[in-house]
């Protein structure tokens, strides 16, 4: 198991998941504590993201004044320590309390995605710049002769009130183009912007894997020192869904997402529910279980997975669909999860941590659907899909 620092976050409705893996190469020094880690595979802790972000907020200050940033996990005191060594000998130390937690991991069968696009981040950046910042959802559609991205409005008359934008791209524009199944997936663009600007600042190409509507879409970047994934749930297509009976006699509340994004509030409350870490990357075949959606669009949730658990058969029971307890909508705090895994030693080089992609929360409660999603460490290796190109 490779040494790494994993930083993960999921929004409260579990419709957006992001994770960053940093190998020791990313850092100037990466020093796991063998005493601590001999008892467990990894140090796992959970911080409130609103406490961490302000430490890195001021770009000008960071670039001008900060020479070095040290991050230490102090287990006896339950503190994560961010120490900035600045010019003129000044040191800023922030001791943030953390909660222990199991790390979460989205389970997403990237290798089973029929559609794969890979493009330079600049291309994607140039595409999304045409959509207003306030634009929540967009629909990405693919066929063998084109890829299109357009604004999506839930209401019928939404397109009258707002500005509609549609961009079409020829397959040649992409570094890699594979369409296994013509489809159109609708997801929240806002939650992707963080990764896109990160990729642009690093000059990394972005991979996008997706299937049909309702299945999650995954965006990822990777280089020698880091890997980042954002997995977003997508709206199901009401035309394709067929009604089916809920099991166990529970009534299935269809939750219609009023908005697909949420402002993060500073309300106090328990952190995100515990979720589990996968000790090794686990690839699970997608069950492909589409849960009914009687009338309206609905957003499927990302399946979060605990290691050692047998993945449950799909059920139609709301809120038991996830293997992890759902955070009620009242708890809107996003949490930032750290996990460091032990293996052999390693040294690397780095500077400050880059800004992390942040998802935004949705207001909705858990829906009555489930989606199983598996993530793999190296998506590219597992892509065996058909390659189809005009």
């Amino acid at each position, binding site marked *: 198991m490779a040494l790494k620092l994993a930083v993960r976050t999921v929004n409260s409705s579990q419709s957006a998941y992001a994770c960053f893996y940093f190998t020791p190469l990313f850092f100037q020094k990466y020093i796991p504590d063998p005493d601590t880690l001999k008892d467990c595979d990894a140090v796992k802790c959970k911080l*409130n993201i609103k*406490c961490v972000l302000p430490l890195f907020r001021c770009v000008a200050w960071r670039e001008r004044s900060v020479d070095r940033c040290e991050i230490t996990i102090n287990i006896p005191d339950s503190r994560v320590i961010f120490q900035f060594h600045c010019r*003129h000998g*000044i040191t800023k*130390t922030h001791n943030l309390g953390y909660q222990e937690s199991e790390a979460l991991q989205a389970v997403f069968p990237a290798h089973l995605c029929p559609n794969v696009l890979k493009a330079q981040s600049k291309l994607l950046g140039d595409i999304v710049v045409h959509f207003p910042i306030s634009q929540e959802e967009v629909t990405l559609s693919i066929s063998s002769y084109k890829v299109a991205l357009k604004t999506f409005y839930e209401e019928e008359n939404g397109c009258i009130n707002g500005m509609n934008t549609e961009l079409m791209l020829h397959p040649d524009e992409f570094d890699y183009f594979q369409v296994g199944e013509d489809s159109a997936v609708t997801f929240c663009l806002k939650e992707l912007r963080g990764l896109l600007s990160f990729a642009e600042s690093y000059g990394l190409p972005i991979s996008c894997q997706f299937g049909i509507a309702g299945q999650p879409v995954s965006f990822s970047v990777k280089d020698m020192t880091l890997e980042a994934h954002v997995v977003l749930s997508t709206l199901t297509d009401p035309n394709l869904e067929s009604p089916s009976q809920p099991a166990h006699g529970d009534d299935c509340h269809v939750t219609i997402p009023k908005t697909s994004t949420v402002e993060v509030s500073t309300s106090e409350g328990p952190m995100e529910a515990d979720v589990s870490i996968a000790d090794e990357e686990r690839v699970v075949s997608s069950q492909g279980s589409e849960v009914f959606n009687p009338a309206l669009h609905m957003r499927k949730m990302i399946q979060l997975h605990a290691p050692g658990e047998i993945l449950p058969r799909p059920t139609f029971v709301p809120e038991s669909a996830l293997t992890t307890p759902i955070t009620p909508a009242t708890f809107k705090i996003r949490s930032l999860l750290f996990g460091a895994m032990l293996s052999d030693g390693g040294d690397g080089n780095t500077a400050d941590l880059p800004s992390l992609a942040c998802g935004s929360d949705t207001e909705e409660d858990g829906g009555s659907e489930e989606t199983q999603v598996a993530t793999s460490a190296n998506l590219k290796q597992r892509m065996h899909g058909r390659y189809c190109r005009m």
Partner: protein
Amino acid sequence: MPLSTQSQADIDQYILIASLDNARNLSNILKAISFKDHAIFNATQNGLKVTVEDSKCLQANAFIQADIFQEYTIKEDTVGFQVNLTVLLDCLTIFGASTTPGVCTALRMCYNGYGYPLTLFLEEGGVVTVCKINTQEPEEPIDFDFCSTNVTNKVILQSESLKEAFSELDMTSEVLQITMSPSHPYFRLSTFGNSGNAHYDYPKDSDMMELFQCTKLQTNRYKISLLKPSTKALALSCKVSVRTDSRGFLSLQYLVRNDDGQICFVEYYCCPDEEVGEE
């Protein structure tokens, strides 16, 4: 210029006349202490001292020496009054916050004495405004009894280095703790907020540290809500001196250069929040 058309009789009755070609040289420095509505003005031969206090725990003073003014006439040893500082600042900036170079508001501030309003003549671009602000009986400013002989620890820092720290202070912390010591951590600002604590350390050999005279370890806490307004003075200043005395009282002195490069001073005095104890 209209201001000079006042009759000699008018001029004779004023016990204080202070004129500035650029009113910003006064308004900027007053903004640095404008955390409360009321200010106590005390004018002497040496110049103008403006005092603002909060909860009997915090006092801020702005000093504008007589030679900053283009004209400064005082007919008594000391002239004191109290005015609404917010109103005064509104009047001083009545022509708006124009930063067009070369265009500034000229000020003539006149006071007849006890019971009379403070009269401001302001002119910009040929337009004259006359403001009369009611004055009140001046309260006696608190004497913090802070004298240099009792000073235990003193540092002088370039303001640049403290500006970031003060602007990003964790306001969920109730206190700002200041530790000064002849040994590590030398000079440390600490907050204790909801998410955890933060420490800003300035070593004694930092090139931001102009003077370091600490005789013993002292740790004192001050209400952060009281000290936060001093950020304005810090933002204006180029240097700041931080001193604590044997009781743990804090004195912050800011060296401010005005638009014309002249030097003025602002100081803050603050009582400690609780006895953390000296070691």
